[in-house]
């Protein structure tokens, strides 16, 4: 009657989440093609585009410098970059290598897997923010109050969440070979069209017309506002509303793509 001995029948969820998060972080971090581009690229763009005129006022009479404004732009670009590329490419690769097959036969809960992946990417995104901010302060003379720093970091991190959904969706829709191309093809142009690299008024009219419907444009309003450089893009509440709606849409898309992939493989 060994069966009478009480022992837990499934593993506790928290230790599994801690282990999984560590593993997902290490998996991302140890791939230089991902970690270096994710952590260094936003800072590099800042150096190339922002440093030359970092200390000049954003416009005549503004108390905000161009460096501070562009810091906010690159902060948003950087975190969303981690989410879209990190998830999109790593999930597509893992599917290509059939890592999901082994996972599928273990008692790992899918929710643990997804939360762990999200947390690990948030950690990388945070590191990208820190590197970018150090550069902006040291070389670009960015000067923000503690409250502004806090608001900028918080808003950038929260704004990355809809892109977690988009990244998951791309990861389950794209093949391992096409994933890098597909994710870049979607992400880079929208970053430009949202005014993250050049002010919108310098872009062609049709892009200016599309921009307000792009998630990065709405996120940009939030981070620019955080450094005291709000633009003409509507109220902060509206921007949050858009981001929430995008989060819902992208996560539903991700769920659909995930289910589609699972039912193809495991039916």
């Amino acid at each position, binding site marked *: 009657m060994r*069966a009478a001995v009480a022992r*837990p029948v*499934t*593993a506790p969820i928290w230790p599994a989440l801690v*282990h999984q998060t*560590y593993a997902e972080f290490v*998996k991302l971090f140890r791939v230089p093609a991902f970690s270096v581009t994710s952590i260094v690229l936003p800072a590099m763009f800042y150096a190339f585009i922002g440093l030359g005129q970092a200390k000049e006022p954003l416009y005549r009479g503004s108390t905000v410098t161009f460096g501070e404004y562009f810091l906010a732009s690159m902060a948003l670009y950087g975190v969303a970059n981690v989410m879209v590329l990190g998830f999109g490419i790593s999930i597509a690769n893992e599917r290509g290598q059939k890592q999901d097959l082994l996972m599928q036969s273990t008692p790992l809960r899918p929710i643990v897997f997804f939360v762990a992946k999200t947390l690990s990417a948030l950690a990388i995104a945070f590191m990208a923010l820190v590197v970018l901010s150090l550069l902006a302060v040291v070389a670009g003379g960015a000067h923000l109050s503690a409250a502004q720093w806090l608001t900028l970091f918080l808003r950038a991190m929260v704004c990355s969440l809809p892109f977690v959904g988009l990244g998951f969706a791309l990861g389950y829709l794209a093949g391992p070979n096409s994933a890098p191309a597909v994710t870049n093809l979607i992400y880079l142009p929208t970053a430009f069209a949202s005014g993250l690299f050049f002010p919108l008024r310098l872009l062609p009219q049709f892009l200016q017309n599309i921009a307000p419907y792009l998630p990065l444009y709405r996120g940009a309003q939030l981070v620019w506002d955080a450094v005291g450089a709000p633009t003409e893009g509507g109220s902060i509440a509206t921007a949050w509303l858009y981001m929430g709606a995008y989060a819902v849409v992208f996560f539903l898309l991700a769920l659909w793509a995930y289910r589609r992939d699972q039912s193809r493989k495991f039916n």
Partner: protein
Amino acid sequence: MGAPAAELVNASKRYGEVQALRDVSLIIQPGEVVAMLGPNGAGKTTSISLMLGTRKPTSGTARLFGMSPKDLKARSRIGVMLQESGVPGMLRVEEIVDLFRSYYPAPLPTAAAIKMAGLEEKTRSLVKDLSGGQRQRLYLALALCGNPDALFLDEPTVGMDVEGRRLFLDEIGELAAKGRTVVLTTHYLEEADQLARRIIVIDHGKVIADSTPAEIKARVAGKRMTFSTPSPSDESQLAGLPLKSIQVEGRRVRLLTNEPEQVLRELFRRGVEIHDLEVAGADLEEAFVAMTHREAPQ
């Protein structure tokens, strides 16, 4: 009595046009060591996939410890090695074993699982740097680390060298001796013969035999005779003998017959000089070929 470790009830599986499994029913009791044999594409992997819940039967039922194979309570009691499944290359061996342990309610210590799989020297290596055979051992460590009641091993020794295979089979034999249920698929008949007390032969999606290795061998009636001749053998010397098959390699002759005594008498009468005569029951390989090739053209 507890529920069977694994069970298929009238299970069929179709992939598009391909009927991979036809109305298969089988029960694997706790503590059994079962080998599933069959040619490529026979339905071995599909049978295991249904038991593990990584595939759903098109009709019929699969159960694991009396539960749905997708139930976490059932999955928490098994360890698996699957063909062609991938593992993250950028984790170290100890890291991934430690990760997989966290999925199970009562796991083994990480070092113990790595030792059982014979991977101690590679503990700190990145998974991507392992050789094919080492990677199979890592899969074994991952299958064992949850301290499972039942192990499902799909072609476990593919890619292992001779020494690796021997260690591996010893390890599985030990686990079986401790009362673990082991279900393995294999191409290698000697593996099945050495490990299993029950062999299920699958061909064209159907179970065509399910019994002990001895009984399967007995299904090929007859004896295998091997002997050497002083000069390279001439097949004409064997003409007209009641033989089921003849293999001649230089001076070594291998025959399969139902009437070994009569064959011997006739050989002596013809004055054929023979040395090193051995007469034995047909082995598993011959039984297997006889069972699965009956309708194959070549």
